[in-house]
């Protein structure tokens, strides 16, 4: 795909990662659920104890 054909792909919503503003939700998922990782968030660190 040439650069000039990437108009749609360059849309912010097409980014292949979580928006920064989702990070708060990712944090409580890490606390409340056993699974973590493979989402660009933390894979370890912190006690996750509250």
């Amino acid at each position: 795909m040439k650069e000039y054909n990437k108009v749609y792909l360059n849309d912010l919503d097409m980014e292949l990662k979580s928006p920064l503003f989702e990070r708060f939700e990712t944090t409580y998922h890490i606390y409340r659920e056993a699974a973590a990782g493979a989402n660009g968030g933390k894979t370890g660190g912190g006690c996750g104890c509250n």
Partner: protein
Amino acid sequence: MEVKPEEVVGVIKSIFFYIFLSIGLLGYAQNDSIFTYKKKVLEAIEVDLLIGYYEQEGVHASVTGGIGNEDLQNTAPTVVIRIPLNVDDVLTVDAGLSAYTSASSSNGNPFNQTGASESGYDEDNSGRVPAGGSPWIASSGASRKDILTSINLSYVHASEDRNQYWSANIGGSFEYDYESFGFGGGFTQLWNEKNTEFSLKTQVYLDQWKPIIPTEIHEFEIYGNGFLVDDRSYFYNVSVTDSEGNGVVSYLPSNFTSIDDVNRNSYSVSLEFSQILSKRLQFSFFADYVIQKGWLANPLQRVYFADRPNFYIGNFRSISNYEKPSNKDIFHLADDIERLPRTRIKFPFGMRLNYYLNEFIVLRSYYRKYSDDWGINSNTVQFELPIKFSLKLKLTPSFRYYDQTATDYFASYNQHLSTQDFYTSDYDLSAFSSRQIGGSLVYTDVFSKYKLGKISLKMISLRYQNYQRSDGLSAFSVSTGFSFVID
């Protein structure tokens, strides 16, 4: 010789053509910068301010062995600043606070509410003071609230052709009973006209507990087998009863051994591959491999054994009511703290697939499969549907489904056996599914209408999510974010 006007014009045109061509070539020779102009990786300083509020209710408090008030409120302000150091390099500073109050954590010492030995009174002239506490009531103990402070610095360098990126990061977080120090690095390669991308990242966290353990076990650890009758103990002169309401001094959390390793280290490798499939479709595949070592249990969380007699502090008439929220005045003394293996290997992998339906709607999808060597397997599915009402306004409804199996070491309140090596009654490690429904409203200041000096507003975001877990835990979060550009 006759010269035709058309020939004169043609010659003049040719002369001008060669003059302009020469000037152009001369300019190229003298200053080739206009042909080698590089777009900055980041044009200007960007600042994101985020603040989130989270609240939950539940009935499976892990600090009180899997039953009890799980109410929790959390407020977390964060600032993220991205600074272009030059055309190729960007430094990001990410700092935040996370302040919480937790009913579950407050019951590390559940006896504060009534004062236990410190403010009791001698009601029955036995020398023993009635005291109480309940897993259903938040205590006024110090562990009811805490503030986590975190800071992370990351640096990214891009190659001349923007086909390679190198990154490094370092950071730490601090709270009352826990410290975390982390660092890592990564490399990204793009090729195939930037249609294909591969990333490799590694991350290390070196964490340390400053363990807080439940009060009755803490006193046992300090004063030994006689801690109930030792006048230096918190429990001196406090009435402990068995299941029949008889006053006893035979309670001993004898399975308890002191925490001998306060470290918890995590090492991870992350791979990501992404590919553009068409003008409207792209996907990425990613996988992490994580090894954790050290004290992986939470020292504050109680466990109760089915094969040991039960001991209480408080009104013994309420024992039959112990597992109900109406219990306000009796507390079951712990048999031990949570114990889990010293290593854990996690293997999550997943993919994202984004499709540009039209200029108004994008479909974003995410799936993750997770497994670890503690017996937990889980699936996560998420869909988001950003809908643009105009250039400035966007609404994004979202839905997330999650399920997990229980760890091999989980059992509910008072169901573990004292002969087990590992045990937990933390419902975050139990089998459940959850559903999260919500969305966000984003306003984008396309033409930087709102400016204050050199600071221009870029975006405002407002998010709401409702989270329901099949074990009864219910939560919601509200967050807002402001993005600015500093020229």
